[in-house]
């Protein structure tokens, strides 16, 4: 556009020069040359005047256009100010309210979640403690020793019952042995009774011979005959007593044998009962041990699960702290939005204001997550627990 006057100027100059050159060709005389030069100068003068007029026209057009631009720009700025005021009045309060609502809802939800979580942990602890009580297992780091001790004690006490049975059986064995010894004595007594009877027979025979000899002696042997007769009477009585003794011994012998047989039979039955009793005790104790092993395995699984749950609880407790971090992030954003409202209220937001806002936001940061660039945050996530002792 700036080239237009120049080209026009050069056009009039060229026209003057061309006319001069044509005149010089038609009249190649000094007068013609002067006229041609005059035509050239005239072209230049006309050219300059045309150029000046053109510049003035151009400047006027430019001024008009700039005024229109400035007007449009001012309208635009006013529209922007109105937009910022509308943003400040309508959007930012909504953002702040939503941020506040998000914080409150999240806090409420996490508090509720944590409370429920604590309840689950408590109920689990109570269930495990109740299980320990029910099974007689030692609680807290204990083992199945409590139940094992109960079973071992039961086995010992049942063993005592077996020992009592064995003792009774041994007593009966001794009684049987004593009875058998008595049978031997009765055999000896029987022999002694037989001897008594034999002596009585021989005495009777002697008394009979003495009576015969006394009869032969006549009057002189009469006294002796009386003695011989008495001796016979005594021998007869001795013989009867011997028989009686023999009979009584026979009764006693039979009684002892019958008693021995009964004792022997009872001993056999007791031995059988003892064997059966021991088998039952072994079986019951075995069942107890199987049950105890089952309980022990169950308790072991319970303890293992409990340990796993405790670890999960610890991990969950760590994760539940995210709410605190997010709450702080949202609070810092809220603070910055509030600061932004002050800047937007007058409808202006200079780049210096933005810089100050960013600086203010950065100064409120407390966590590494906030300070690190977003890309780094995505890569690393929340930092691990860190403890410094002073």
């Amino acid at each position: 556009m700036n080239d237009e006057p120049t080209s026009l100027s050069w056009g009039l100059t060229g026209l003057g020069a061309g006319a001069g050159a044509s005149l010089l060709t038609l009249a190649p005389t000094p007068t013609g040359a002067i006229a041609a030069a005059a035509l050239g100068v005239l072209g230049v003068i006309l050219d300059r005047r045309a150029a000046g007029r053109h510049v003035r026209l151009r400047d006027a057009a430019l001024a008009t256009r700039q005024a229109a631009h400035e007007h449009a720009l001012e309208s635009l700025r006013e529209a922007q100010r109105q937009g910022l005021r509308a943003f400040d009045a309508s959007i930012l309060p909504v953002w702040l309210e939503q941020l506040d609502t998000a914080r409150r809802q999240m806090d409420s939800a996490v508090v509720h979640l944590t409370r429920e979580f604590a309840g689950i942990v408590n109920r689990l602890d109570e269930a495990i403690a109740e299980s320990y009580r029910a099974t007689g297992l030692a609680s807290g780091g204990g083992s199945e020793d409590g139940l094992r001790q109960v079973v071992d004690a039961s086995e010992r006490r049942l063993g005592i019952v077996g020992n009592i049975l064995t003792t009774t059986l041994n007593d009966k064995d001794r009684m049987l042995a004593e009875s058998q010894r008595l049978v031997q004595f009765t055999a000896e007594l029987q022999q002694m009774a037989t001897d008594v009877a034999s002596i009585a027979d021989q005495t009777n025979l002697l008394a009979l011979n003495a009576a015969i000899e006394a009869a032969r002696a006549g009057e002189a042997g009469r006294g002796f005959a009386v003695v011989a007769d008495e001796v016979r009477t005594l021998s007869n009585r001795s013989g009867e007593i011997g028989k009686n003794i023999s009979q009584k011994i026979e009764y006693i012998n039979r009684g002892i044998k019958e008693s021995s047989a009964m004792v022997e039979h009872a001993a056999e039955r007791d031995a059988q009962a003892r064997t059966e009793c021991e088998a039952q005790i072994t079986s019951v104790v075995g069942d107890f041990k199987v049950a105890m092993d089952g309980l022990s395995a169950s308790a072991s699984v319970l303890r293992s699960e409990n340990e796993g749950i405790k670890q999960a609880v610890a991990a969950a407790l760590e994760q539940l702290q995210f709410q605190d971090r997010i709450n702080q992030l949202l609070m810092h954003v809220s603070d910055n939005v509030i600061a932004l409202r002050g800047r937007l209220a007058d409808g202006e937001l200079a780049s210096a204001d933005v810089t100050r806002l960013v600086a203010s936001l950065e100064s409120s940061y407390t966590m590494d997550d906030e300070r690190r660039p977003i890309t780094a945050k995505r890569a690393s996530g929340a930092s691990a627990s860190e403890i410094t002792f002073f």
Partner: protein
Amino acid sequence: MAKTILVVDDSASLRQVVSIALKGGGYDVIEACDGKDALSKLGGQKINLIISDVNMPNMDGITFVKEVKQLPNYKFTPIIMLTTESQESKKQEGQAAGAKAWVVKPFKPEQMLAAVSKLVLP
């Protein structure tokens, strides 16, 4: 008798998380929502340890520690700062105020219990 720990944090959920961890370790817990509330809850009772947040409304953690250190009954009570703040300058502020340890959130319950058992008063 169980030892008592005062937990000071403006986040209710975090107070609960800390309480669960401490009760799991056999401690009794008293909760307060900021430094001012915590001072009102001390009330002369036996406190074996204090765990406090740093950034709190009404009274921040550093000011609270300084206040506690002025109280004859609690000037020797160990204090652990529990915060998201990990800047060295802040830690130095805590140390200067009288804190015994600085734990950055999120904490692992077993590490917290280890730190507590190391510092708690008998």
